[in-house]
């Protein structure tokens, strides 16, 4: 990644120290934003917000709330950043937010460590098909202690 002064966008899928953006840029300013529209639309309860909050407090980041893309971009301006780094997400909502950020300022995405690295995308549809391809690869990482 060619950024000189990026900021990090930490989202709900990667609130751990092993977040690849935090690992790659440990000194960069980082932000987590509570998505107020999602919280309202999905009627997310306070327990879930408290849980997210407590996870976020473990990490060296600034907490904000509001429109996520707008908040991340404002945070980037605040730190005169030349880009945003985040971890790739599964949730389409987070992907859309990423696209909105990227439309204004380049966004670089890093993949979190995978559960299983498969040589080609597995066949989905039913678990059995996936597991037939994945199980042996998962267990390759295991060696009995003694």
């Amino acid at each position, binding site marked *: 990644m060619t950024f000189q002064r990026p900021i990090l966008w930490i989202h709900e899928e990667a609130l751990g120290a092993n977040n690849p953006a935090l690992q790659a840029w440990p000194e960069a300013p980082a932000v987590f934003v509570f998505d107020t529209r999602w919280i309202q639309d999905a009627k997310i309860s306070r327990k879930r917000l408290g849980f997210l909050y407590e996870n976020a407090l473990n990490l060296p980041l600034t907490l904000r709330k509001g429109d996520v893309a707008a908040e991340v971009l404002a945070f980037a301006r605040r730190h005169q950043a030349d880009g945003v780094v985040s971890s790739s997400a599964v949730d389409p909502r987070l992907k859309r937010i990423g696209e909105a950020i990227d439309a204004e300022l380049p966004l670089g995405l890093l993949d*979190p460590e995978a559960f299983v690295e498969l040589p080609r995308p597995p066949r989905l549809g039913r678990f059995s098909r996936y597991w037939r391809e994945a199980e042996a690869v998962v267990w390759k990482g295991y060696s009995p202690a003694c």
Partner: protein
Amino acid sequence: MPSAAPPSINGDLPRQFASRDALNTLLAQEFPEAEGELSPIRGGREAADEKLRRIDARRYAKSRNNLKGAVTGLSPYIRHGVLTLAEVRDSVFARIRNRDEGGKLINELGWRDFWQRMWLDLGDGINNDQEPFKTGHDAGAYSRELPTDVRDGTTGLACMDGFRDQLITTGWLHNHARMWMAAWLVHWRRVHWKAGADWFMQHLLDGDPASNHLSWQWVASTFSHKPYFFNRGNLERYSDGSYCDGCPCAKSCPFEGSYEQLENQLFTPIPTIPDSGKSRNQQRNRQSRSSGGASAALARPKR
């Protein structure tokens, strides 16, 4: 990990709290529309590590279907990336003496990975019925609203009201409780799976459309070959009778009956595939799924 407080400006949410109550108060101010209180389940790496340390893969394999079984309680931390599935996998590897001991738990981690991959594929399509219902009822026959007595936990069924209370106060439920509750809502109360799934999402700390919506659809039969249902014997067994003893509805329990009786009562006749007799117990949920759903009639736990 050190978390030196970054310089704060207007609109930054606080990072210092005198107590958990103070966090609760702040959340009430900042998110007045978000209902309820904090969960007794705490966020953060320390709490997650404590749960990691307690993993007992061998006991897990034997007891995971029981409400009091040795399940890990890791789902909220995994869902939000406090722990990656890869870290949990490695923790399991470090704790087992041979592959057999960890097989079941590693397989369950695989389920999470599988649902995530499905979600990547489906995107927002995850909100729709993946297939038609195989219950003999039309999608339109299912209510799109969650009944008030369910939401309020006033149905009189000690088990379901109890699961509802646990969901609301803690934001976590055992897998079996989730399956029973989903099956009851969809098949007995005729509520569309999406209404139930959305309600779960409001409250579950691990709420995740991948695992949640697709499991609801699996129960409903819009993502499986046959609906999942249960009977009183099954619930009583895996909850050690803790709900049925003293339930006001014990004498008029809607779950009382053989699987055949309940099937006739709940579903209008559709062709079934006979039970191959291979499954030994409740594990068959997995077997019927992991056999590609080919023997979908197995979606009936044995007593």
